[in-house]
């Protein structure tokens, strides 16, 4: 089992940091059963989530921190992202967006892409008041986000 974990406190550099953390993860010589597309799907999912933290999250003046933890189990990739923001209603966000996606939309695809790439998506508030997103990306999948293309 390979794993990498990093704590970020600077939202200005977290996106590049997340991408190079994945490079670090891939460099460590992944299990042969892991396909590269699964790693790229996991990376996209983590990117979308951290991009939302940068753009939308409310840290209420606290110094933000975000911990990204990635590891493999066989041909699965597991990710956990914790942060000290005020969180938000992910379930509602997903439902609203799934119904409301306009044709060839400009925004609103991030959470849906995250959802489509992952096979288990849990968002919880931990005992110490931090928010925790957990998900699994399975190898060998062909995930699909259905976007309305007819205008």
């Amino acid at each position, binding site marked *: 089992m390979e794993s990498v974990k990093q704590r970020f406190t600077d939202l200005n550099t977290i996106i590049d940091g997340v*991408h190079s953390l994945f490079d670090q993860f891939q460099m460590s010589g992944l299990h042969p059963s892991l396909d590269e597309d699964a790693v790229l799907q996991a990376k996209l999912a983590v*990117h979308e989530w951290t991009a939302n933290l940068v753009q939308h999250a409310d840290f209420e003046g606290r110094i933000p921190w975000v911990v990204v933890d990635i590891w493999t189990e066989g041909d699965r990739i597991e990710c956990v992202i914790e942060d000290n923001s005020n969180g938000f209603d992910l379930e509602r966000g997903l439902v609203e967006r799934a119904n409301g996606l306009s044709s060839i939309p*400009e925004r609103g*695809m*991030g959470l849906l892409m995250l959802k489509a790439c992952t096979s288990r998506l849990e968002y919880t508030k931990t005992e110490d008041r931090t928010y925790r997103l957990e998900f699994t990306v399975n190898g060998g999948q062909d995930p699909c986000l259905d*976007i309305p293309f007819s205008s």
Partner: protein
Amino acid sequence: MQVTTMSFTVEPCNQETVIVRIGKALDFRNAAEFKSTCQTQVRSGARNFILDFSETGILDSTGLGSIFSLYRQVSPLEGQVVFAAVSRPVQVVVQLTRTYKVFRQFPSVEAAEEALQ
């Protein structure tokens, strides 16, 4: 939000066609810049956009949204947006969203140029 300037290089190809070199990333950090770069080109008469993804490690939902925005702008003008030299991280997004249905893909910028002659 990061203040990196990730700018786009534009090369004219023929009167109606331009090549936009997408750099390392097209994401929420530079999608607005991408849109305004393309806007300027449309105003100057460009209709067809060849997006060169050969160097691109990051394409996210906001980046894709900005390409959709361009597509909606040039479609009524009978323009096209095509993808060239799609890198593997970009291909993963294209496949996930099935956007190959709206954007033709070419193995290289040259192949795209030929098709858009």
